[in-house]
């Protein structure tokens, strides 16, 4: 192989974990505990100390089963929130693991708030088989070909598909980590894995500008959503996340904006607790309060919806997996935000899934030997990366194409700019434009490995956009306001759409597959019958 810019290295392992965030690290730990001889390799573009969603810290694990509640209650709650489109088998197996991983975290030194009694307080037919992955070093000029008996994918969800709330200097001040660019989804889509429920986008309701969480205000001090006339509007639209966002959009459209969380009138003690709580998880909000000179008790907190994300830890988008978290590609397991069908998993749910996927991978590799990656495949992938390093004089920069993608998605695929709404004609335009931008990325040039990473991140997001658009088109109903609001089909249609919308790339085309919902207690295995 003629290497111009990058060196080439081969690595070998038993289990390859792609993504060293919450789910990935916990999967690695599970394997180390259960099978110390198994070789594990974690690939991660950042330092695992701060990689993934939790770099900023997190103050709420969000998901554990409190006293008097059962794992089934949690399943019911998630099912209600998603208007029925969830996988009961995945939710139940995750819920059953929630408290033991929470207890384990505590053992490792995490402080968890408890009440005086010591209880946690509330708040297909497959012939595709994986034999490794390719990657490159983001700092040094090295390209890797990694062979593995099994791969666990834990790369998180996708941010930056849509134009963000603040497209200028603070474009990355977003809810979800801007560094999660859907790499795992894109790898799966390109490899022909089946994906599910991409159309259930996630939009968070956040404090304006700082994009800090609102749950702490709503649940912590009981702040209600009010419009600028002082009217409480949350009762009018409902309390699921999608309904809270929708209500805020509707109030704004009706001329009653801006919208707020009513904090005015809380006590000085509550002010103090909020200032500290936000320093822990979203310091920008505390700075905002201090800089404005007005505490939450003196001024209501303005709120807004974020741009849409694809994130399987909150909604149900991601890989279509069996109950053991194996994807439709043999030997490829998925956990955390990248795995579909199992919403509301949050931090502990990602740990629970990391454990389930790790144990399944261990079972799987017992009967596997390493199969080599063909030289042809290696050189194809190596040359593709090399080409960007050798390209000269690209007409567009990576940043310009990123902006183009985000603008198209914003205008034609239901971004903030259209109040999250779209119709079929707009989706057609979005699809065509995204394809055009995809071809433009071929000529991008990278000065160094960081820029090469940015090009790959852009291409991954474009791949995710294509699948997302196909899904938005396929669910011809409006089940979740804002998350998937198709103006051609404004009603919910249980007769035809109480099912999963799945997709798979076949011969360059995205094929839509409708699948029935799997219930808890069932053990779902892949076969090719919808």
């Amino acid at each position, binding site marked *: 192989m003629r290497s111009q810019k990058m060196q080439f290295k081969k690595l070998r392992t038993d289990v390859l974990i792609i993504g060293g965030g919450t789910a990935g690290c916990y999967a690695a730990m599970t394997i180390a505990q259960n099978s110390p001889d198994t070789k594990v390799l974690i690939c991660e573009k950042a330092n695992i100390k701060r990689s993934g969603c939790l*770099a900023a810290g997190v103050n709420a694990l969000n998901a554990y089963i409190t006293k008097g509640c059962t794992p089934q209650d949690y399943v019911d709650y998630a099912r209600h929130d998603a208007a029925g489109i969830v996988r009961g088998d995945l939710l139940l197996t995750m819920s059953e693991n929630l408290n033991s991983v929470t207890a384990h975290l505590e053992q490792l030194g995490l402080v*968890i708030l408890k009440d005086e009694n010591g209880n946690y307080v509330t708040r297909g037919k497959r012939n595709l088989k994986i034999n490794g992955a390719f990657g490159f070093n983001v700092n040094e000029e090295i390209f890797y070909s990694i062979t593995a008996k099994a791969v666990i994918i834990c790369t998180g969800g996708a941010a930056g598909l849509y134009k963000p709330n603040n497209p200028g200097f603070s474009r990355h001040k977003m809810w979800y980590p801007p560094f999660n660019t859907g790499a795992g989804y894109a790898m799966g889509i390109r490899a022909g894995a089946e994906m599910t429920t991409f159309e259930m986008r996630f939009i968070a309701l956040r404090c304006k500008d700082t994009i800090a969480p609102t749950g702490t205000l709503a649940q912590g001090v009981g702040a209600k959503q009010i419009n600028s006339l002082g009217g409480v509007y949350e009762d009018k639209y409902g309390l699921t996340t999608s309904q809270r966002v929708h209500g805020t959009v509707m109030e704004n459209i009706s001329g009653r904006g801006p919208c707020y969380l009513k904090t005015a009138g809380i006590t000085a003690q509550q002010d103090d607790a909020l200032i500290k709580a936000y320093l822990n998880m979203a310091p920008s909000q505390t700075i905002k309060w201090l800089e404005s000179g007005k505490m939450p008790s003196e001024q209501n907190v303005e709120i807004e919806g974020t741009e849409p994300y694809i994130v399987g830890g909150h909604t149900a988008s991601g890989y279509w997996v069996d109950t053991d978290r194996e994807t439709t590609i043999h030997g490829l397991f998925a956990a955390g935000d990248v795995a579909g069908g199992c919403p509301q998993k949050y931090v502990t749910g990602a740990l629970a899934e990391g454990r389930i996927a790790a144990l399944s991978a261990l079972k799987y590799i017992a009967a596997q030997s390493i199969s080599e990656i063909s030289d042809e495949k290696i050189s194809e992938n190596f040359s593709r990366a090399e080409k960007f390093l050798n390209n000269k004089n690209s007409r567009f920069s990576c940043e310009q194409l990123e902006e183009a993608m985000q603008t198209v998605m914003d205008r034609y695929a239901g971004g903030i700019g259209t109040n999250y709404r779209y119709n079929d004609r707009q989706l057609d335009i979005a699809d065509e434009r995204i394809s055009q931008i995809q071809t433009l990325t071929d000529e991008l040039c990278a000065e160094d490995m960081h820029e090469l990473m940015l090009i790959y991140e852009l291409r991954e997001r474009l791949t995710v956009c294509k699948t997302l658009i196909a899904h938005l088109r396929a669910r011809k109903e409006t089940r979740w306001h804002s998350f998937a609001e198709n103006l051609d089909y404004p009603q919910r249609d249980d007769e035809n759409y109480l099912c999963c919308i799945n997709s798979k790339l076949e011969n360059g085309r995205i094929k839509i597959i409708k699948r029935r919902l799997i219930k808890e207690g069932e053990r779902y295995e892949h076969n090719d019958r919808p």
Partner: protein
Amino acid sequence: MSIMIDREKCIGCGKCAEVCPGNLIKLDGKAFIRYPKDCWGCTSCVKECKVNAVKFFLGADIGGMGSLVYTRQKGDILTWVIERPDGSVKEIDINRKESNRY
């Protein structure tokens, strides 16, 4: 959203660069932020710097007024220091052994 690095204070230990989830900080002997617009504002680098050379601020486009923020750690106490443009300073202590009340 971004950070500022005080190159006078920086001792070039590289910890901030190592920890940044976006690989946005580079070193040329001392640290500098190579991609300011790509900063997520997670404050990992701020907490990592032992000499308080990394400070964090809100962009003017999201209402920032120019305060600079850094942290100091002593045992379980994490102190947040907010330096306002008028020179006044506010310190807030957080005990890491206590979980949030909200």
